[in-house]
């Protein structure tokens, strides 16, 4: 059965049409990732309308290709121009650019490309191994547990909020509010329609995502008249040959850095809200700390390129794991992938892998295949990158806006969706101007309906509200939701050297041991006991260091 499904998935992804689309997708992703000012999320969200008329596996494979390409694209501009194409490749510039300036751009690019490849492959293997296991646990979830799981995912908005926690939380809640406009999915009653058919049918959330993310970004890019008329970057005449063999030999010598960084990326990706922008810095930091020559970092050390690139490509495998297993996105791009599944009437849940095995395996295979395609495409796209960076910003913005309007119309064949694109483009632009982060809003838009539907289902089964806090899994998610919500405060307090932060981890471990005990069996209470022991140890250490004289 597994083999049959696997073969069917191979047939889906292995078709000439799908492979061609994946090649185009990787190419587009590489470009989007390499051009400063364009984000991977923006590239993925702009791809969505094109995938609508494709079969689900083909559409998702195309989007995964854009994603994998985008994750790798940032290294081109980071190494050649010193300007990171995406936040995920910030740390790559620390050593990649100096290495290029030393006259070794081909070697630096080779290191980046192959590290990206191995990072992506390691995370793809871990995704295949972990997602089905996590999904098996997810089958135990009931609507109360799911509701709390979504609430936990929403607390991620706190982490995505960046500098201003309140603005981030408001943006997340506004995202939830946007999804309440139109007919209620549970009972079909109109809400906030003010007598308008347009509002009654609700906002197409893909149009909302494109408006919020892409339209508003483009507006911000052309806001200043003189910078809008400038080319993106002045890279000059770049003629570089990627040194594959030399880079591979270097990577073989430093395989520990590759594996460790990929694991950092993978687990950062699983953590909601902590994406590639954090992973690449963490991996760089770890590489520097464990290096015998930390003083060489920042001056063109190969490990300074390997670590961030292996980690940022591994992030998406991590972010896709909770999406595939539980239907909960790990980051914004995974949230957009969730949107892609929803437009094909596929609702990811713990039973997704067992109910839609061909599609699930197709996603796994596409993830592997996209990494291979990325490897082959880098050399080609390097030349295109140099050309694209010479295009003036206003040209890119005008063309993308025009094309986005066509793509958005194609979603449902209604012009109303283009109006939605405009309204949410304006909203997104003003939110950016007023310093509201948009990522939490996207999460709110994507998760709003899922939360309400599960709340409705839970209450349809029983009106006992205590079940949200007495069922073990619901309690488990409630506890980690609280700890997740206060995490930004924890980070701030840690930076300020507050003593209470030392008790954060022991308190979390102690609290989660309670639902684990309640789950019964042998393994989970055992885990709970382990958590308690660890909490006691960490608590003792924290107490001793807190009471020690300064």
């Amino acid at each position, binding site marked *: 059965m597994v083999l049959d499904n696997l073969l069917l998935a191979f047939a889906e992804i292995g078709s000439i049409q799908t492979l061609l689309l994946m090649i185009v997708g990787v190419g587009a992703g590489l470009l989007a990732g390499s051009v400063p000012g364009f984000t991977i999320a923006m590239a993925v969200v702009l791809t969505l309308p094109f995938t609508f008329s494709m079969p689900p596996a083909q559409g998702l494979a195309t989007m995964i290709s854009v994603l994998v390409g985008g994750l790798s694209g940032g290294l081109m501009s980071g190494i050649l121009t010193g300007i990171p194409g995406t936040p995920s490749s910030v740390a790559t510039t620390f050593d990649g650019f100096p290495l290029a300036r030393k006259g070794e751009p081909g070697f630096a690019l080779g290191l980046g490309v192959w590290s990206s490849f191995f990072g992506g492959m390691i995370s793809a293997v871990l995704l295949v191994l972990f997602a089905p296991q996590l999904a098996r646990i997810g089958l135990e979830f009931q609507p109360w547990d799911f509701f709390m799981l979504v609430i936990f995912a929403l607390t991620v908005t706190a982490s995505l909020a960046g500098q201003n926690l*309140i603005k981030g939380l*408001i943006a997340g809640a506004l995202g939830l509010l946007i999804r309440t406009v139109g007919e209620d999915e549970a009972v079909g009653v109109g809400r906030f329609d*003010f007598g308008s058919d347009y509002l009654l049918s609700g906002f197409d959330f893909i149009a909302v995502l494109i408006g919020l993310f892409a339209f508003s970004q483009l507006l911000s890019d052309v806001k200043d008249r003189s910078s*809008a008329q400038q080319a993106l970057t002045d890279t000059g005449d770049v003629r570089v040959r990627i040194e594959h063999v030399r880079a591979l030999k270097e990577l073989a010598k430093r395989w520990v850095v590759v594996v460790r960084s990929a694991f950092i990326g993978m687990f950062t990706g699983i953590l909601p809200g902590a994406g590639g922008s954090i992973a690449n810095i963490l991996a760089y930091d770890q590489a520097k700390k464990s290096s015998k020559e930390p003083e060489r970092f920042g001056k063109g050390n190969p490990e300074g390129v390997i670590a961030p690139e292996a980690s940022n490509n591994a992030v998406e495998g991590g972010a896709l794991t909770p999406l595939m297993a539980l239907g909960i996105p790990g980051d914004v791009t995974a949230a957009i992938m969730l949107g892609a599944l929803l437009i094909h009437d596929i609702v990811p849940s713990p039973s997704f892998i067992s109910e839609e095995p061909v599609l699930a395996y197709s996603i796994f295979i596409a993830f592997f295949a996209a990494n291979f395609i990325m490897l082959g495409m880098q050399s080609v796209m390097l030349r295109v990158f140099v050309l694209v960076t010479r295009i003036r910003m*206003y*040209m890119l913005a005008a063309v993308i*806006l025009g094309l986005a309007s066509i793509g958005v119309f194609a979603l449902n064949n209604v012009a109303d969706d283009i109006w939605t694109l*405009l309204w949410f483009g304006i909203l997104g632009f003003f939110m950016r101007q*007023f310093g509201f982060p948009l990522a939490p809003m996207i999460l709110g838009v994507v998760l709003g309906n899922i*939360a309400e539907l599960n709340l409705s289902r839970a209450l349809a089964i029983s009106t006992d509200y205590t079940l949200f806090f007495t069922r073990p899994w619901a309690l488990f998610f409630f506890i980690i939701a609280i700890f997740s919500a206060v995490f930004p405060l924890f980070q701030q307090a840690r930076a300020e050297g507050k003593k209470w932060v030392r008790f954060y981890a022991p308190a979390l471990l102690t609290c989660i041991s309670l639902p684990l005990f309640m789950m019964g069996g042998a393994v989970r209470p055992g885990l709970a006991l382990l958590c308690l022991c660890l909490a006691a140890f960490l608590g003792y250490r924290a107490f001793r260091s807190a009471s020690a004289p300064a």
Partner: protein
Amino acid sequence: MSSLNRDTFVAIVLLLVCGGLYVASLEIREPDYGQLSPATWPRMIIGIVAFLSMIYLVQSIRRGPDEKDDEKSWEGFGAFLAQWRNVLWVFALFLGYLLALPWVGMLLGGAAFVFLLLTVLGPLSGRDMLIHLVIALVTVGGMWLLFTHGLGVILPRGELTGI
């Protein structure tokens, strides 16, 4: 008013929106079936937004007025227009494109939108305008061909133009 800052105004607007939406939520029909009223979830969120907006308001008031910034200060309507020229053009042209869509169709409307946008955002020489025209026709035309012939999506035709 000068003692208030930009965030204060945003917080007040958010609170007003919450108030308006709460009033609108009273109009939501209550069906005889289902345990969760269709108004409950939106009201919960409105409550959360209102609560957070209150905190935001208090924070913004405590922060005090915005510092005067020569670059950011708007000296009259003309300066405002100059500062936001490109953004206003994008809004206006996109709005015009949408309003004209039923009459001119997506192919011509889209190409005209891209051409005009390129022209108002970019330099105005004859050579540049020719480049803008070619870009608009090639990109929108290519996309139109891809969708109508490649993907089988029927894009809006104009009542006046028939295409």
